[in-house]
Structure formats: C-alpha cells, structure tokens
C-alpha cells in the first residue's frame, strides 16, 4: 500500500516513460504487484490505452437535428406540445403531454439522411421522476401500407436516473442492408402505463457509417 506515499512524495515522477499513467496505479488491486518490474507498468499502459481509446469522442456531425426553435411562429396557434419551460437549449422544447401516448414523430426518407447503415439517434430528455415508462423508437417503413423493415425500442427510463434535469440518451442502430432511398425513417417517443408530461430537446441523428 505504498502508492499514495510514493505519489505524494514524488516517487512516481510526473514525466517518466509513461507520464500521466501513474494516476491509474490505484486501480490495481495489489500495489506490490506494480513493483515487479515490467508487469504492472505494462498492464497499466494497456488499461490506460483501452480507456483512452474508449473515451475518444465521436467526430461525426449530425445529419439532422431539431431544437424546436424553428417551429415557433410557423404553427398558429402555438401547439400545446411546444413548451418554453424547461428547455435544454434555445427557447423551445418538446413536451410529451400526459394525455398522449406518442410524440416527436420525426419522419425522413432514408435517402435524404445520406443512406446511413449505422445510425446514432439521441435526444436530451427531462423526466419528472422514476415512475415513468417511456421509450425512444426508431423504425424504418417501406411502402403503403407500411412494411416495417426495422424497429428498435430504447427504454429511456432504464438509463435516466437523474430527474428534473436534462439528460442525454442515445443509441446506435445497425440498419438493414437492403434499404431503399424512399424508405421512411421514423423517430418517435412512446409512453405507457401511468402517463406524465415529459420533455425532449435537441434531437439528433448521426450517420456513423
């Protein structure tokens, strides 16, 4: 259990062969393991490399994003789902009212999104408490009547555990290989069981591949 003292006293130099990695020494279960030449340092480097690689932010820009500011003024009277409190960014957000099962309803042809094979869909949500049951659904339909080519439901309440504050939820979707340009990509929210008013803002779609 020497590492705190060694770090405090400069025993592990800040600019040694692996400069910032000494911070990861506490992660090791046995400090004396690190004193064996080579093994601990190598393991720490691998762990750090994995961690850094995993934390690298995605560089892709959204192919579509909606902040709801643009809707203001175009729909008269202002619909009840267009709220100005709370908002994540800008002046307006979307409210999935406690009287509604479905909301958002973003619809775009697959071709106009740049023909994504791997699509990331995300949104900021604001839930009042943990008793909600709400999901963000991505669906791809073909033709009329619609034939469902893809469907995935992301339960938002399973991952959002902080309430009355804005939280980012997102998921990656591997779309089928045989999609056509006029297939319709739909993104919508669904709530079931007891209904509450929930807020969404800054929804985005990113083409990852």
């Amino acid at each position, binding site marked *: 259990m020497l590492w705190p003292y060694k770090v405090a006293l400069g025993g592990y130099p800040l600019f040694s062969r692996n400069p910032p990695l000494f911070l990861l020494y506490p992660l090791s279960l*046995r400090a004396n393991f690190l004193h064996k030449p080579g093994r601990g340092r190598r393991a720490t480097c691998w762990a750090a490399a994995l*961690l850094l690689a*995993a934390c690298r932010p995605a560089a892709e820009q959204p192919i579509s994003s909606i902040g709801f500011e643009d809707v203001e003024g175009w729909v008269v009277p202002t619909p009840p789902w267009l709220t100005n409190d709370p908002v994540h960014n800008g002046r307006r957000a979307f409210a999935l009212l406690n009287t509604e099962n479905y909301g958002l309803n973003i619809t775009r042809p697959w071709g106009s999104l740049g023909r994504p094979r791997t699509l990331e869909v995300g949104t900021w949500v604001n839930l009042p*408490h943990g008793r909600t049951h709400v999901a963000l659904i991505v669906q791809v339909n073909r033709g009329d009547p619609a034939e469902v080519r893809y469907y995935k439901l992301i*339960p938002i309440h*399973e*991952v959002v*555990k902080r309430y009355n504050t804005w939280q980012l939820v997102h*998921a*990656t979707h591997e779309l089928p290989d045989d999609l056509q340009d006029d297939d319709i990509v739909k993104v919508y929210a669904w709530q079931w069981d007891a209904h509450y008013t929930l807020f969404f803002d800054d929804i985005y779609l990113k083409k990852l591949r």
Partner: protein
Amino acid sequence: METTLPRPDAAGTRPRRLARLGARLAPLLLHTGVLVGLYAVLYTLGIITQLPDNSNLLSWDADLFHRIAQTGYDDAASGINAFFPLLPGIWHFTGFSAIQISLLNATCLLAGMALLGWAFRLSNRQLLVALSGPLLLFGLVPYAEALFFLGSAVLLAGLHRQRLGLVVLGLVVACLARSAATLLIPSYLFAELLWWGRGHWRWAQLGRLLAGIAACLVALGGVMLLQYRSHGDALAFYKVHALWGHIWQPPLLPLHSSAGINVLWLDATALVVAGLSLLSCLVLGLHWLTSWRTTPTATAVAAQALPPSKAVLFSLSYCVGAGYFIVFYQAGDLVGLARYVLASPFFVVLFWQLGQLPRQRARQLAAAVLGAGLLAVLALGGLGGFNSFYPGQALVYFGLFLLYLLAYVAVGARLTPWFREAGTALYLVNCLVMLYLLDLFLHVIWIN
C-alpha cells in the same frame, strides 16, 4: 456439616451457552444497528427523503399481498393468484399493519440467516456479507421473500445436517410462501440423486426422496384447493404467467433489465451465478453418470471424490432453474433474477461453499467468474451496444460490475491477503446500495 454444591458442569454450561448464543447473535444485531444507523444518517443528511410508513411500504406487490389478506383470492383472472397464501394468511390472522408485518418479515429473515449460520458454521464475516445482499431489502418490506428465505434456510439446514424433518418442513413453508415448487422439486431430485448410493441404505434414500416431493405436492395442492374454493379455478396461479406474457421464447439480445441500470448490474451478477451453476451442475451430473454404479472407496472419500453437500447441489440447481425461467420466459428482460437468486439462502450457501474450496480450485473459479462476467457484458451489449452509454462510460460501468463479482470470490474464498478489508468494503457498499434501493421502492419506483 453437609453443604450442597452446584455441579461443576451445571455451573459452567449455562453462561457458556449464553455466551455462545450472544456470539451467534452479535453479527445479526450489529447488522441491524448498522442498517438503522446508516438509514438515520442518510435521512438526516437529506439523501434519503422519507421514512417507511404504512402507506409507502405498500408499494408494488406489497399492495397485492395486502389485498389478498383483506379479500382473499376473489378473481380467477387476476394477477394476484400468482402470490401464494402464506404471507397474506399471516397478515390476515394477525391483523398487522404494513410496518408490523415488515418487522415480522425482518425477524424471519434474521432467523433464517441465524439458522444458516448455525448449520454451516458461518463466520461473522460470511454472515455479515450474506446479510448485506442489496436485494435482501425485499425481506424488509411486505413481500413473501422473508418467509421464503426462512423456509428455504430450514430446508438447506436440513439437507446439510441430514435431518429429514427440517427438509420436509422447509419445503412446505417455501412452497406455501412463493410459487416455486417447479424449481424446488427438480432441485431436490438433483441433490438427492447425486448422493444416490453414497453411504446410505437406498430404501432410506428413496423414502427421503418421496417425502420431499410429497411435501412440495401437499403444499402446492393446498394452494390449489384454496384457490379452487375461492373462485373455482385451481390452476389460476399457473395461468397468470400467460397473462403476464411469460411464455417460452429465445432471449432478445442485448439483454436488459426493465428496472434500469441501477439494478441491471445485480441482475447480471445473478446471471453469472446462474451460468456458473449450470456449468457446475453439468460437470457434477456427468461425473455422477460415469460413476454412480461404483461404491466409493475409502481412497475416494479421502480424496474428496464425493459430491458436495446436498445443500450446495440444491442451491446450484435452484439458481439454474431461476436463471432459465428469467432468460427464456421474459424475452431478454433480466428483471427479477437478482431477487430470485441473490436474495435467497441458496446464494448464501454458494457463498459459503467458496470458502470450502481448495486454493487452486478457488483461483480457477475466480478465472471462471471473470470469464462468465465478460460473457455477461457481451450479452448486455458490450462497450459499443450499451444503450445511452458511450464506450468509455460503459467501460467504467462494466469494470465496476466485474470488480463486484471478483470481490465476492476474493472475500468468500479468501483469495487475497486483503480479504478482511475487501469484506468490510463489500459489506458497506452492499448496505448503502440496499438502502438506496429501499428508498426507490418507497418512492414507488420499479426496481424488481
């Protein structure tokens, strides 16, 4: 002059017995004190925002148990038929409030744990870590978990100490407390069959086997009769599963828990326990198939070629059954698995068994736990497919999950020189998680 002196043994025995009893009860009292103290501190600091009362304790299934206690089984098509009558019966006849029935449940839970401590000679550390299982919060609220825990503890004590009376009593109580006969009967068969012809007269073994199965069937028949007399449908408890959509289907990947990420890691822990239990059952079963005709020699006995305790075999089989039911009947939703496995005495027995393993075997088990944990991570979506987690965040989440798994093995099998410190840390983390989950439960937030 004639004087009457106390007999030397009588003078020494009673205080010694009292001291022994006190020593056995000490970890239970300590745990009660720690939980109450932690709850008080967290409430004072405003981290926990409400105290249990007669209203918020009736959340989720507790309300259904309360309804059965009030009205009985009044509807053949209702989900209440899945809840077995032992807890509602006690509630009905005592007329207790929700707080009082919770206190009774807590007492049953502690009694069950004390019984396991006696039967398996659990150390204080083992007892405290076992008591701190986060999902044991369901033994502190008006659920049937505490009575099921007590009944199962009696059963396991009977199996381990080879007392048929305890086995029969435990099976009856457990089968009356929860709809678990479909898990208990195969587990009992497995435990008895793997000891078939090992040191006992086979007719006696057959008698034990039939007595255990009869106990389950009598309890189950009693429940069916009760429901038949209430609303005319003796199979209502079974039909409820179809009502809830519990039909056999391959699991949808990635696995998830409808209770969310704050319970998912516990469900995944239970999944690892169930997976490794399946592996153990297969190995033990194969060994039994290849050697059941041979009578064990003195050498084999000395080399520990006999199967583990029947209680361990039963626990392994139960965990396999619970895992199978959740994975193949809930379409990939793991919710409930942690409650069925980690909040049961079967997990306590498996935790005890860790300490019985030779050092080399324990190390192999730690590697197997790590491997099973990584497989569970993949089944949950891995680093790239974990909903709403970027890979770095998922790495931290799953890293902590694997650390939690390894901590149990390290503490149970004393694999590290720091096992005492690790045990204390595990205990405190578990207690905090338990209180956090209890707070969510009292806020009517779905956790299991």
